[in-house]
């Protein structure tokens, strides 16, 4: 089997395993909060509800936290489809991150196993979950934010810069390269993530806080699983070195 096929197989298996684990945990942690937040998203603007507006006069305009819309009736088929699509999306995220991680492992060429893979996974968590979340906390539906393209660009920049910085810290021999890596990782945070002029979300802050922590927690679990699995499987793929 060619090297690429073995690499691909290792990444796909690790990605499917970790994506499945994340899907199970998500259904009892983040997904219920997403569904609840969507009920706030459909509440009419406070201008159309004068009573609520008067009651919340001390709040900033646009905040009407008290009355979520009643849950919409969802058929079993629709519910199954939604869960199914989410699982597919998670598996694809797992495979995608698996390919990125396994490719990087191969490129670096350092020996790996399940334990070292766990360290790689922690690195992936810091780069692709923690670093972007520091600037752009995980969002629920109905939360306000700056322009989507700007947030996406900053998210990608924060993740790649953090990944580059961590790789420099972990594997560079030259101290200038290490210093450059640290500067690179800090750069997106010095520039700052894009935020709206004034917060305009309709989701209660307590719920948003709970979601942010749960999302980061699920990501930690996902990356630990992906890293360990990738390390264990890549152990056999790496070209032998003497």
């Amino acid at each position, binding site marked *: 089997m*060619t*090297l*690429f096929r073995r*690499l*691909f197989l290792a*990444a796909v298996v690790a990605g499917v395993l970790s994506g499945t684990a*994340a899907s199970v945990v*998500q259904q009892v942690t*983040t*997904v219920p909060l*997403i569904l609840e937040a969507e009920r706030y998203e459909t509440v009419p603007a406070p201008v159309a509800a004068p009573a609520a507006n008067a009651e919340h006069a001390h709040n900033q305009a646009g905040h009407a936290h008290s009355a979520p819309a009643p849950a919409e009736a969802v058929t079993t088929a629709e519910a199954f489809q*939604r869960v199914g*699509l*989410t699982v*597919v*999306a*998670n598996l*694809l*995220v797992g*495979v*995608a*991150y*698996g*390919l*990125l*991680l*396994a*490719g*990087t492992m*191969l*490129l670096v*060429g350092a020996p790996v196993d399940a334990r070292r893979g766990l360290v790689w996974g922690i690195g992936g968590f810091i780069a692709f*979950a923690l670093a*972007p*979340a520091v600037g*752009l*906390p*995980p*969002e*629920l*539906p109905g939360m306000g*934010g700056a322009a*989507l393209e700007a*947030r*996406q660009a900053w*998210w*990608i920049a924060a993740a790649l810069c953090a990944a580059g910085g961590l790789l420099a810290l972990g594997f560079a021999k030259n101290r200038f390269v290490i210093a450059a890596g640290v500067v690179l990782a800090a750069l997106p945070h010095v520039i700052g993530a894009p935020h709206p002029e004034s917060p305009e979300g309709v989701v209660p802050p307590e719920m948003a806080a709970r979601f942010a922590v749960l*999302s*980061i927690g*699920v*990501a930690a679990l*996902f990356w630990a699983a992906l890293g360990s699995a990738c390390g264990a499987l890549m152990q056999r793929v790496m*070209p*032998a*070195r*003497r």
Partner: protein
Amino acid sequence: MLNTPLNAGVRSSSTTSLQTVAAAFGAMLLGAFILFGVGFAQPQAIHDAAHDGRHSFAFPCH
């Protein structure tokens, strides 16, 4: 053998360092492509299908 110091092991006959780099970059490119599709692409159908996953993984969604 002498020209492939990265692979001076058992598999050196079948794997050159060029193959290693090509495989690694191929995997990373494919990973980045899939990640962009699931996490960032904007067409409505893709967005809706990946919606809960995007929020859970903290990709900027809408």
